[in-house]
């Protein structure tokens, strides 16, 4: 149990400080209003933070290998699930099928017919009008 007793408390405070810096960066990143910067600062940094917590706080690097393998496997399976489901759920049309409501909603959004208000018009309503004509 004492295989990671060598760290002093100061080490963890240091890690915590790093995490806060990263947090600040990921917070200001989107303010530049640049898509790719936002993606990197938001999610790239999230991954880094998660890694730091896993290694320094959860000591995953000190657990047996198979634990790391198991955790990685779960993540891989989630990617697999995403890859399998996205072609149907994420797309609004595909080979020989369409989701009229979604397409209509997107069109309405692009055309600015529906604002992104808090509880703005939902796809259903957006399509409801469309169905009329």
């Amino acid at each position, binding site marked *: 149990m004492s295989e990671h007793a060598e760290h002093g408390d100061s080490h963890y405070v240091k890690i915590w400080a790093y995490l806060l810096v990263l947090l600040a960066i990921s917070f200001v990143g989107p303010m530049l209003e640049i898509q790719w910067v936002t993606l990197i600062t*938001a999610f790239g940094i999230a991954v880094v933070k998660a890694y730091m917590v896993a290694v320094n706080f*959860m000591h995953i690097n000190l657990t047996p290998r198979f634990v790391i393998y198991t955790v990685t496997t779960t993540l891989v*399976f989630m990617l697999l699930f995403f890859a399998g489901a996205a072609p149907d759920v994420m797309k609004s049309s595909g080979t020989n099928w369409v989701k009229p409501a979604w397409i209509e909603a997107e069109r309405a959004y692009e055309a600015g017919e529906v604002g992104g208000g808090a509880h703005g018009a939902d796809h259903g309503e957006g399509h409801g009008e469309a169905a009329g004509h």
Partner: protein
Amino acid sequence: MSARPIATTRSAAGIPTQRLAVWWIIASEIVIFGGVLGSYIMHRLAHGIWADYAANTNPWIGLTNTFILLTSSLFAVLAHQAAERGDGKRAANLLYLTCLGGAMFLCVKGYEWSYEISHGMTITANTFWSFYYTAAGIHALHVIAGCIIMLFVAETAKKNLELHRVEIIGIYWHFVDVVWIFLFPLLYIAK
């Protein structure tokens, strides 16, 4: 009832049984959150309008909560260190601080949600808000569960008993923290 089985004291895989168990719990939790967040990301990418909905979330509150959780994680790991040194008192006190962090997190969340709900952003407003409340809600349940278990652990730790439990609950708490680290950009700052 009888004493603990000898089985509990064995460690053929070279890792304490309790730590092994908590890692398996985390593995099964990852796929639960993976299911919710995966579905959320699919919809988010599918609907441009969701960016506008997301703009209504308050990043400052997200920031505060992330800060609170990160800090409570620090307390959790310091408690673990104290437990390593056999200082049960200090470990217990740090665990109480961690719980306090969890409680503050929940209070902030309660304030945030009551504000949003009172402004019509309810769970039924549209699918974005459904995912918003579902994902954050499941996470909040884990926070509550973590706090409750932590109080029990602290009780025993105060008497310098079962000190290894401090590490176990700590690992779980860090996992809850990691989940929030991903929820924060997904729900608040990705516009």
